[in-house]
């Protein structure tokens, strides 16, 4: 191993989804945690990991119950003062792990945490880690006991990195946790929830306009809830729009507990597919959406960019607000080239690999997590523009955009915004780092 492993889209498509080479499968090799991957390779490392996501419930605080090592990086999250004041730690020592005695201390710790807060928290989220996964801790029971003792809702958040590729990975589980405090309410037909992200959609997303045009009066996102009362009002929704498949489990739980059905939409960058998705959504809710003006605007943004900067050759990463393979396919279909994709190939996106292979067979696919990426040499690439924070790490000298802002792009507005910021990066109007 002395050079980065890659495979062309054509080679990968020919092998098929059941014969993905081990170099692209994280379970088959050691995992390289390069600076390119830190945000998504650790369920608590950066961005919206379990710890920060668990605090999506307005007014809540988090008590991390774990060995000190699991809470260490929270100091980085704590640089934001408003977050720092919401994290508390009950540290496990060796004896705790052997005897489980720390569980008996949790109710008292929850009470002490609540008493120390200037304003009583709306809920205490208990974050537990691999340790309790292996100990088989019944944290639901411990939380009930703590709730009774401290007089505040207490909710478990499972930061079980060991189960990342299991049935209930940490980022799926935590989405269920943050909606678990919703209690049954009378339904309001003109009310809809958007599930999937821990930060709001871009304000200019046409999704809001389209839903309003279909008679929806109230659209709630957990990140826009000003307080716990508004959060609780999410229980009145007529249906949930699921924009990230990691929220499927939470949506299923809400269906079961609160009888709120859900509709799933994907974040896409191919405008014809976005149009198709809106058509199907319209059919589901009994409305005909007029999305043509939004589509025209997005396609104009692409055409303007193409006219001004030509057929750029992109490197696309996976630390960004997109599926790297779908975004790459969209770029290729719009007349651009994609020379490299840094991404994780799986069942859900292999379909894009096959389409990329048909249009751009030589596109190279790398796995960010492969140990061989230690030897990646960007000088061998012919890309000239970069999308994704990880791809920017590999190509520090090239113009690019991280495209991983917290406000979430979606639909046509996301397409327009992407080409706007790419244009800014290429014209030097905006710092790209």
């Amino acid at each position, binding site marked *: 191993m002395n050079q980065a492993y890659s495979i062309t889209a054509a080679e990968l498509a020919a092998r098929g989804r059941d014969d993905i080479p081990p170099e692209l499968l994280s379970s088959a090799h050691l995992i390289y945690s390069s600076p390119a991957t830190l945000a998504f390779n650790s369920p608590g490392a950066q961005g919206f990991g379990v710890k920060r996501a668990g605090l999506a419930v307005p007014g809540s605080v988090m008590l991390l119950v774990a060995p000190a*090592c699991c809470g260490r990086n929270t*100091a980085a999250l704590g640089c934001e003062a408003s977050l720092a004041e919401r994290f*508390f730690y009950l540290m496990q020592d060796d004896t705790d792990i052997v005897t489980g005695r720390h569980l008996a201390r949790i109710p008292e710790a929850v009470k002490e945490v609540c008493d120390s807060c200037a304003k009583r928290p709306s809920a205490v989220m208990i974050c537990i880690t691999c340790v309790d996964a292996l100990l088989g801790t019944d944290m639901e029971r411990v939380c009930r006991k703590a709730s009774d003792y401290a007089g505040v809702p207490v909710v478990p958040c499972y930061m079980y990195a060991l189960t990342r590729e299991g049935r209930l990975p940490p980022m799926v589980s935590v989405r269920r946790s943050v909606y678990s405090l919703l209690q049954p309410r009378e339904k309001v037909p003109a009310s809809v929830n958007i599930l999937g992200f821990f930060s709001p959609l871009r304000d200019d997303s046409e999704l809001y306009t389209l839903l309003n045009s279909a008679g929806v009066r109230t659209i709630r996102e957990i990140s826009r809830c000003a307080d716990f009362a508004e959060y609780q009002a999410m229980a009145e929704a007529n249906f949930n729009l699921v924009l990230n498949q990691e929220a499927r489990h939470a949506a299923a739980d809400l269906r079961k507990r609160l009888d709120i059905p859900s509709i799933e939409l994907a974040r896409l960058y191919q405008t014809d597919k976005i149009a198709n998705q809106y058509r199907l959504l319209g059919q589901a809710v009994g409305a005909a959406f007029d999305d043509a003006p939004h589509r025209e605007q997005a396609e104009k943004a692409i055409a303007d960019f193409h006219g001004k900067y030509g057929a750029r050759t992109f490197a696309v990463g996976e630390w960004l607000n997109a599926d790297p393979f779908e975004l790459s396919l969209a770029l290729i279909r719009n007349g651009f080239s994609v020379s490299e994709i840094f991404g994780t190939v799986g069942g859900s996106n292999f379909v894009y690999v096959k389409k990329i292979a048909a249009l751009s067979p030589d596109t190279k696919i790398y796995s960010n997590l492969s140990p061989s990426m230690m030897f990646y040499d960007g000088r061998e690439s012919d890309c000239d523009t970069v999308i994704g924070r990880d791809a920017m790490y590999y190509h520090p000298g090239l113009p690019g955009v991280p495209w991983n802002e917290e406000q979430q792009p979606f639909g046509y507005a996301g397409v327009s915004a992407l080409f706007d910021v790419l244009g800014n990066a290429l014209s030097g109007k905006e710092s790209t780092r």
Partner: protein
Amino acid sequence: MKSLLKHLSPFAPDQSGAVSALFEFGGLIVICDAGGCTGNICGFDEPRWFTSRGAVFSAGLRDMDAILGRDDRLVAKLKDAMDGSGLAFSAIIGTPVPAIIATDFKALKRMAEKRTGLPAITVATTGTRHYDRGASDAWLELFKTFATEKLENDPGVVGVLGASPLDFPALNAGKLLSSALKDDGWKTVNCYGMGAGLDAVKTASAAARNIVVSPAGLATAKYLQKTFGTPYEVHCPWLPPQVLDALPALAGKKTLVIHQQFAANAVRDAILNLDSASQVAVASWFMMEPEFMHDGDFQIESEEAFVEAIVNGGYDAVVCDSRLRTALPRTQAFNIIDFPHFAVSGRLLDEVK
């Protein structure tokens, strides 16, 4: 509650210390975890990760690996990564997961050496202890593995043990420590882990003396003394200029210094040199070696105990990482002299010359 942190966040754990100790020696380091610990170490506790491409990997353990104890799979992955890499050795670092499933690190070491044909180091860190314990164990294991030959003593060579960014808040701390020792007359300074690499470790027995700059280096210094007869002294030859500049104002006052013990002792010595009537106590959240403690020095056991010591201690000033201020009552004023400690706050000084 002793184990509850209400204002501070946890300090660097033992596994971070072990990786920090081994980071510059040209080995392949595998953190025996599911991914989160590696994210913490690489993303937070190892500032050199962002300026150099080190070979630090996660074992990527999954639940069935832990349940079934599939060490053979780990070693097979390790071999794949080592093959053709040109790396000199492998190191496997423990975390809570192997601690809970009682991984046999001695067996892992033997398996890794057999499969790769290269030396392997294992450090049975658990994630429940502080960084200095892990660093201490890693350094000792490194020197036991590679410093095996007794060489002729070179009177111009000095070794520095216990230096890492976790203890000294500057990426160029190795250079700064070395420069200070060269000013003292040493011709060659081997600052292990911050400048001096594996070749220097292999020839460690040639050093005329070892300087121990943090408690994490003490066990190795004792080992080298016992094995090769190399004498050692505890001495911290460099302190940040911003700290030194603040010390004259503390002469004759009652001061508490909180840092790693040997750096804190150096601050105390500097204050006493200014005015021997000063009252200076040293405290640490980390290892406190009894033989280097003075009357009034103490170990900080908890956030509560820290607050009580400062609030009721009657100190005119506290030299410590200013991030610790967040635990103190906001309604009271405290004279805090900032001495960043990366293992506490993850803060480095701006470039120090």
